């Protein structure tokens, strides 16, 4: 099995889908000759040609709009946003045109919008954002946030094949830091299924994307230093949310700590809090707690960004509080 980085795995998944299905197209800024700002589509233009690898002007609303039109013909366009922060520039097309199309008039929009999200690389306020909740709160979309190279390939392939619009947020901190064996097979990781990354009976850490490793590190430390056995759930897909995996872990550990890199107020932890109260209030032996980024823009300077982001130490501290509860 070849060893691949997370970013290579995304590219590999897209390449395979393009080989498999001529209906799959790529559209975005600098994705052709240059192969994309992070080289996800490197070599695609030479191999697949300019009709399938469309370099666009700096026009995010045109990228998404044109992809909608193509998808209406049964094509499966994949839009690259150079940094996911620029998704704000096509917010209207996504939330009003794309998300509501099938509900309103039965026109499916099989397309993917993908790009590099997340912080930890000193990208500052406009190259580090985590916009997932804007879209989790928009009925009609699916939202995917892979944490491993294996998942990155399997999930992007599932996203391309899905008959609904999928937002695929790649974490740029993981792009080259995650490196692992990835099968060459044509496999998919189904959307809407969380994964248990570590089993434990004392408390459950629910997380996704770059925070998965942070939680695994924290769990390791908690095991060693406190003898606490933490279960770690990687959500993988935020919408639709895999409630069952969360609830069955809760039934075992009776305590949930949600960790997300997204800012605190209105983050996914709140949605999970409401969901577990509705579904399993009597299973809670303590409050759902959360470790998140601060409610600020993402600051630029390294000490500020570190202070802003969650890390293993913050997770350990919160987990200890929760365990003691």
């Amino acid at each position, binding site marked *: 099995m070849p060893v691949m980085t997370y970013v290579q795995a995304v590219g590999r998944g897209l390449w395979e889908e393009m080989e498999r299905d*001529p*209906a799959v*197209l790529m559209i975005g800024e600098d994705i*052709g*000759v240059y192969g994309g700002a992070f080289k996800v589509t490197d070599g695609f*233009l*030479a*191999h*697949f*040609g*300019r*009709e*399938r*690898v*469309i370099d*666009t*002007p700096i*026009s*995010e*609303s*045109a*990228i*998404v*709009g*044109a*992809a*909608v*039109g*193509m*998808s*209406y*013909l*049964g*094509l499966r*366009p994949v839009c690259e946003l150079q940094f996911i922060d620029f998704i704000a520039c096509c917010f*209207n*097309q996504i939330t*009003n*045109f794309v998300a*509501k*199309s*099938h*509900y*309103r*008039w*039965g*026109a*499916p929009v*099989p397309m993917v919008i993908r790009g590099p999200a997340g912080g930890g690389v000193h990208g500052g306020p406009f190259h580090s954002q985590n916009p997932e909740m804007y879209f989790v709160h928009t*009925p*009609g979309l699916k939202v995917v946030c892979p944490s491993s190279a294996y998942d990155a390939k399997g999930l992007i392939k599932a996203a391309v094949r899905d*008959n*609904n619009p999928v937002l695929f947020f790649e974490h740029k901190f993981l792009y080259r830091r995650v490196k692992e064996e990835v099968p060459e097979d044509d496999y998919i990781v189904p959307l809407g299924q969380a994964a248990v990354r570590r089993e434990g009976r004392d408390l459950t850490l629910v997380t996704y994307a770059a925070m998965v490793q942070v939680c695994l590190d924290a769990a390791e430390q908690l095991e060693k230093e406190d003898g606490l056995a933490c279960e770690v759930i990687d959500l993988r897909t935020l919408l639709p949310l895999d409630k069952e995996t969360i609830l069955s872990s809760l039934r075992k550990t009776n305590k949930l700590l949600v960790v997300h890199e997204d800012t605190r107020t209105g983050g996914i932890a709140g949605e999970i809090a409401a969901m577990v109260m509705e579904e399993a209030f009597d299973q809670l032996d303590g409050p759902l707690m959360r470790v998140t980024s601060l409610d600020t823009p993402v600051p630029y300077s390294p000490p500020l960004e570190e202070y802003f982001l969650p890390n293993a130490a913050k997770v350990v501290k919160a987990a200890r509080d929760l365990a003691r509860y």
Partner: protein
Amino acid sequence: MALSRQQHLELYYWMQLNRKLEDLLTVMFRQNKVVGGVYSSLGQEATSVGTAYALEKRDWIAPMIRNLGAVLVKGYRPRDILMQYTAKSGSPTGGKDGTAHFGDLHEKRMVSPISMLGDLIPVMAGIGLGARYLGRNEVALTWIGDGGSSTGVFHEGLNFAAVQRAPLVLVLENNQWAYSTPNYLQARLIDFADRAKAYGIPGVIVDGNDVVAVYETTKQAVEQCRRGDGPVLIESKTFRRKGHAQHDPAAYVPKWMLKEWEAKDPILRYEKYLTAKKLWTEKEKNDILARIDRELKEGQAEAEASPLPPAERAAEGVYCDGCHEIRAEWKRSPKPVKPGKNTAQWFEGKSPALAPSLGASQERKEKAVVGPSNPGHGKNAKLKKHKKQRKQRK
């Protein structure tokens, strides 16, 4: 290209159907049968009908709210529109959405608009590009208002379409007003066709109250697209003779202006023309009117007989879960097309392979640099164009 007698009668039929359908909607609105507002295209029927009539069945449209005429030409029946406006279960959207917000990807090839103005432009460019990739020579046409032409997505969509030479006809329906906003508060332009100059595409002006002119201008634009020469912007000069919607008395529109445009009524003008040219008989006219009357009655009866949708339908259809089979319809072998070259190759010594031909602008003389230049490095130097530079190197 000249229209046959039969075609003239069809154009007349569609314009009258458009108008009388809206008259009926207004009556039903007053009877409180309509859900939401009614948007009138009184005086603009020639634009909706003439543009849509220039398309073939394989071509695509996406209507704006005042393009019911085009929706009819594309094959929808009054019943469909009446049910949309009355939010009935049998409407094309089953009551999920109203007014002109509906469409059909298979039979009619019509894309539903959304309320946000301008968003359809890149979508229709995408339809054109997608069809081209599938080997299908299909043209996409949509409309935008004088007001809608101020949106950012108008710019992004048309610029992208121009660069990609997408087969897109954009009809800029300049009816002089955007809600209460007169044109001179919308843009510092006399001719909105000038918007085209920012994209290096043709911007043509047509008398929007002259259905034959509208038809023929659109036909030419469609042919340019069919040839692969890329998008065309048509400015149709016309006038919105009612308020923005039923609730708006349009007190802000000067009386003289209204009167002037009443005199240019596209249907009356066309009637006079057909009569002067002896293109119809009185009987044919009456038959058309009688047919419209009958069709509207039938449509209304059908619409009123349809129940409101069952409440639980509200919860259905957010996702497409196996309810549609999604398959692209190829008109050529779906093999990878010729690989692109890299940028350096495109430039090297020859005309860039992907560079769009520059249309009108190519023919212009090289322009002097505006503003003074300092001597020593080329006083009043002409700015050299790439092409010239390449020549010199050889």
